């Protein structure tokens, strides 16, 4: 977290405190003086050294760092069965945890049922579809990260063929890969994208095979939504570039990771905790990309990335953050040639969230369900 965001957050906290002091009726602080805010987090998987659950854990670690004396975090990991998560959330609530976080979409259905029945706690679910009674949700605009990494890929490809290792054909993956190619084509109109579907979030064997297939078809920059370094390592073995998409694997993929971005949920946790402490928490749907307090952070770049390309990426990032540039603005055709977003139009967020078509230049189709 940069100093800028930290300062902004502290200012926010001061403002919230002031508001609470001025109008005691509007906000009702839930904590007595000297009492700690008890936060509970249930990870569906194990917190490892990288990947989805790791970023979730980084968020509550940031929360602890932000409020070392005011917040106490209880963490459960490896709660893989959906049958169990309802009981454990309820138990955490009964034990007096006022703010509870779920880390995956799979917990969303349980939380939707549970949250309204436990008014003493407030709930937040990452990747949930929409806010509900006593349940806030937060999700990242992954596509802002993939658009920027696409610029790097478009500049660095020699074959003009990019590769994408597809986990599942869910909108989150579809808009990510579409934006990746849009980014590439913004600097290199010749670029095309090939996809291999793995149908798994983590499956090292199939991911490795997918990379080999893509390289055999001429791809020389490989991206996807990897949870482990396996795709990057496979690409490195073949001598092609890989993108650290939603995960910086430069510690493992030492030579051939071109650029990377990560998901940073710190702001989601810190804001929710502040809201609960000030008594102003409301269930909201937060969908954020780059920028201060955002959920997408550009991380490392290879020393081989030319400064001119880094500069192009930085300019695009600034334009995305200040709102002067929208990624899904027309004209955009799908890969069957149909005009999907007309010139001068911009896709509504709901349409992006439900995207089920591939942009022009993506080779292949979505697996039929």
């Amino acid at each position, binding site marked *: 977290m940069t100093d800028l965001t930290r300062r902004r957050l502290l200012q926010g906290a001061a403002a919230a405190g002031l508001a609470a002091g001025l109008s005691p009726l509007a906000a009702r602080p839930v904590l007595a003086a000297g009492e700690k805010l008890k936060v509970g987090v249930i990870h569906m998987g194990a917190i490892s050294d990288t990947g989805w659950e790791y970023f979730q854990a980084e968020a509550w670690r940031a929360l602890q760092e932000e409020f070392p004396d005011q917040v106490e975090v209880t963490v459960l990991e490896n*709660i*893989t069965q*959906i*049958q169990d998560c309802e009981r454990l959330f309820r138990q955490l609530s009964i034990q007096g945890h006022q703010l509870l976080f779920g880390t995956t979409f799979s917990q969303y259905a349980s939380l939707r*049922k549970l949250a309204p029945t436990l008014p003493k706690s407030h709930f937040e679910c990452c990747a949930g579809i929409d806010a509900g009674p006593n349940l806030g949700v937060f999700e990242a605009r992954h596509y802002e990260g993939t658009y920027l990494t696409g610029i790097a890929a478009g500049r660095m490809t020699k074959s003009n063929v990019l590769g994408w290792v597809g986990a599942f054909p*869910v909108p989150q993956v579809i808009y990510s890969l579409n934006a990746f190619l849009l980014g590439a084509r913004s600097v290199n109109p010749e670029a095309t994208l090939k996809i291999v579907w793995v149908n798994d979030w983590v499956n090292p064997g199939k991911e490795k095979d997918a990379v080999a297939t893509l390289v055999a078809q001429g791809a020389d920059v490989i991206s996807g939504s990897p949870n482990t370094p396996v795709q990057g390592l496979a690409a490195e073995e073949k001598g092609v570039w890989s993108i650290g998409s939603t995960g910086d694997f430069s510690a493992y993929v030492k030579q051939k990771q071109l650029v990377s971005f990560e998901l940073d949920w710190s702001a989601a946790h810190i804001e929710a905790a502040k809201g609960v402490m000030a008594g102003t928490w409301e269930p909201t749907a937060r969908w954020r990309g780059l920028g201060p307090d955002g959920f997408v952070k550009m991380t490392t770049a290879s020393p081989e990335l030319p400064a001119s390309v880094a500069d192009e990426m930085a300019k695009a990032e600034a334009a995305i953050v200040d709102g002067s540039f929208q990624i899904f603005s027309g004209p955009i055709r799908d890969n069957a040639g149909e005009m999907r977003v007309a010139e001068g139009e911009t896709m509504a967020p709901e349409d992006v969230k439900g995207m089920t078509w591939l942009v022009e230049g993506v080779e292949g189709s979505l697996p039929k369900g």
Partner: protein
Amino acid sequence: MPLRIERRPRPSRAMSWASPLIAAALTAAVAMILFALDGREPVSTLWIFLTTPLADLYGFGELLLKAAPLILIGVGLAIGFRAGVWNIGAEGQLVLGVIFGGWLALEFGGAGPWVMPAMLLAGGIGGALWAAVPALLRTRFNASEILTSLMLNYCAQLWLAYLVFGPWRDPAGFNFPQSAPLHPDALLPIVIENTRANIEIVIAVAAALVAWIFIERTHLGFQLRVTGAAPGAARYAGFPVRRAVWIGMLTGGFAAGVAGVGEIAGPLGQIFPTASAGYGYAAIIVAFLGRLHPAGIVPAGLLLALLAIAGDYAQMMLGMPSSIGGLFQGTLLFFLLAADVLTTWRIRRVEDAPLPATEAA
């Protein structure tokens, strides 16, 4: 004075019932040693570990919810095991229950209150049909039902995944692999208010009673027991071994299928590709811990459910890894198998007199 292990003239009945208690006591001892090594006060930690899950009515309901499928499947399997039929495929049979019951719920949910009982029946039939495959292979081709039933678990899992990723995917679910929520008509009624404990626990206990009467009090049950205990004697008496295989497999499959419906119509309320929580395997431990006897399987199912729940709570209350619950389950099984040796063998002191065999040499 050396000790020697020798075979008992007949298996000890007392030892057979004592060994689960010995195993439980030794497991508790291991748990306390582990807690002590971790720098905790052993007795109070064990107390917290075992009692926190049951601190309130809701916790009690959760125990019943978790124990119900274990008891139900355990009872079904035990009938087969008593007859010497080794059905390792309850996990797959449970998944078939999810598929059959789930189809009914998605197709007819909201059509009336008959849907829920029909789902239970359909799930049971699905599980029994899946179990019929290894039964047929065994009776027709003498293929080991251990291998065939186990392998069919993977087929069942893939079939369910295909359905949930494909035709059954919720159109409003953002492409995520899960069905639409089941209609309230398709859900099992709650038996203890303000908990998640549903009617499945009642079904499970009723199944245990029926199984008890069947195994101990009917002629067919007697035939099954003899077939399992002494296949030669059974053949000599003219008891059909094939019939024992069929009955053993089908009851196990039916019970597992019903338990599968219990998951989707109970705590899940939706069909997920991971609908099974591994109960089909855990129930094998439950059946043996309960001495393959319905009266033993009920407490055994409750104990295993308690250990599973306590493992999650240990993370919350004691800051220990959740795998501690699985570790204690494994320890329990280990000591049970060790103590079971003493059912058919005994340890005796041997007099110091030289053995005749050595003298002759």
